[in-house]
């Protein structure tokens, strides 16, 4: 629904050929990464039916990755040399659904199925908007069409398998997974905000505290001669020391 509201924004993002190419290439990487995680899931599940389905899903993701990359490269090749789109707007038009914030080998099947179901649903919503705004680029639109067909299969199998492996609690598992996604979104935001604040503090320190030390460091560097430096004998460097 949210993606629908931003349809004009997506139309603007996708109208630029170079931006489109880079986006497709990035989508290709995300799909391939997601495929690898699904392979991992297929290797770790004790359920043989799920192993087959995860593997099939992984093969689909790999194929999607190849399609995205191929199309992205086609568009890039068709552009005039030197063309450059400076703004990629990655956060406005996110890619597919890599399973990158989930340690697949540590998750029980029901949690993974719920996660995959919601991720596929989310990706399908986004991809259908992207498909709709690509009416002037028929080959790219066709790729999204094809991928959307696969996403329907992925959404269905994850839901039915969730009902199979967790017949009593699958509804609760889905809700739990929805809440976990919100919590994870908060954690991502908190970590990003923390990183920004940490970066800001360190940048302030850099300009306020470092200058005299930088002067001393540069002076010391000038005294160093280029080339070989002797290594002090081993007895002077006991292994208990971290320095």
């Amino acid at each position, binding site marked *: 629904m949210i993606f629908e509201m931003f349809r004009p924004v997506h139309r603007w993002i996708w109208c630029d050929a170079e931006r489109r190419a880079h986006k497709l290439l990035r989508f290709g990487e995300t799909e391939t990464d997601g495929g690898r995680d699904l392979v991992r899931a297929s290797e770790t599940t004790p359920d043989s039916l799920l192993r087959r389905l995860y593997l099939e899903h992984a093969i689909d993701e790999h194929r999607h990755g190849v399609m995205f990359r191929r199309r992205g490269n086609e568009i890039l090749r068709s552009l005039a040399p030197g063309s450059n789109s400076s703004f990629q707007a990655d956060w406005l038009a996110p890619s597919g659904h890599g399973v990158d914030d989930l340690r697949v080998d540590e998750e029980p099947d029901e949690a993974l199925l719920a996660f995959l179901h919601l991720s596929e649903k989310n990706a399908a919503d986004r991809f259908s908007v992207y498909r709709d705004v690509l009416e002037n680029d028929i080959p790219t639109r066709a790729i999204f069409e094809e991928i959307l067909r696969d996403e329907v299969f992925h959404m269905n199998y994850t839901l039915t398998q969730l009902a199979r492996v967790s017949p009593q609690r699958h509804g609760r598992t889905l809700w739990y997974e929805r809440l976990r996604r919100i919590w994870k979104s908060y954690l991502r935001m908190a*970590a990003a905000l923390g990183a920004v604040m940490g970066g800001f503090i360190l940048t302030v320190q850099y300009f306020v505290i470092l200058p005299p*030390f930088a002067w*001393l460091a540069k002076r010391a560097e000038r005294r160093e001669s280029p080339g070989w430096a002797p290594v*002090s004998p081993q007895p002077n460097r006991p292994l208990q020391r971290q*320095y």
Partner: protein
Amino acid sequence: MLKKRGAVQRKVIMLGSSFGSIAELAGGLWRSDSGKRWLVPLAVFLSVTGIVLAVAATVEALAPFVYSIF
């Protein structure tokens, strides 16, 4: 079999040893024949800052607030 410890417990153990590590850094710089004694105050100051960064990395939910101690 490795004992499973919670993130907070591990961080407490890690921080417990960090002061010894900072002392090693300072001592190493002081003894170093490369003449870097002048770097000791900065290295120690940044390492202490680093302890805060390490705490923030552990308790990601509180990360934005940990920096308020500055």
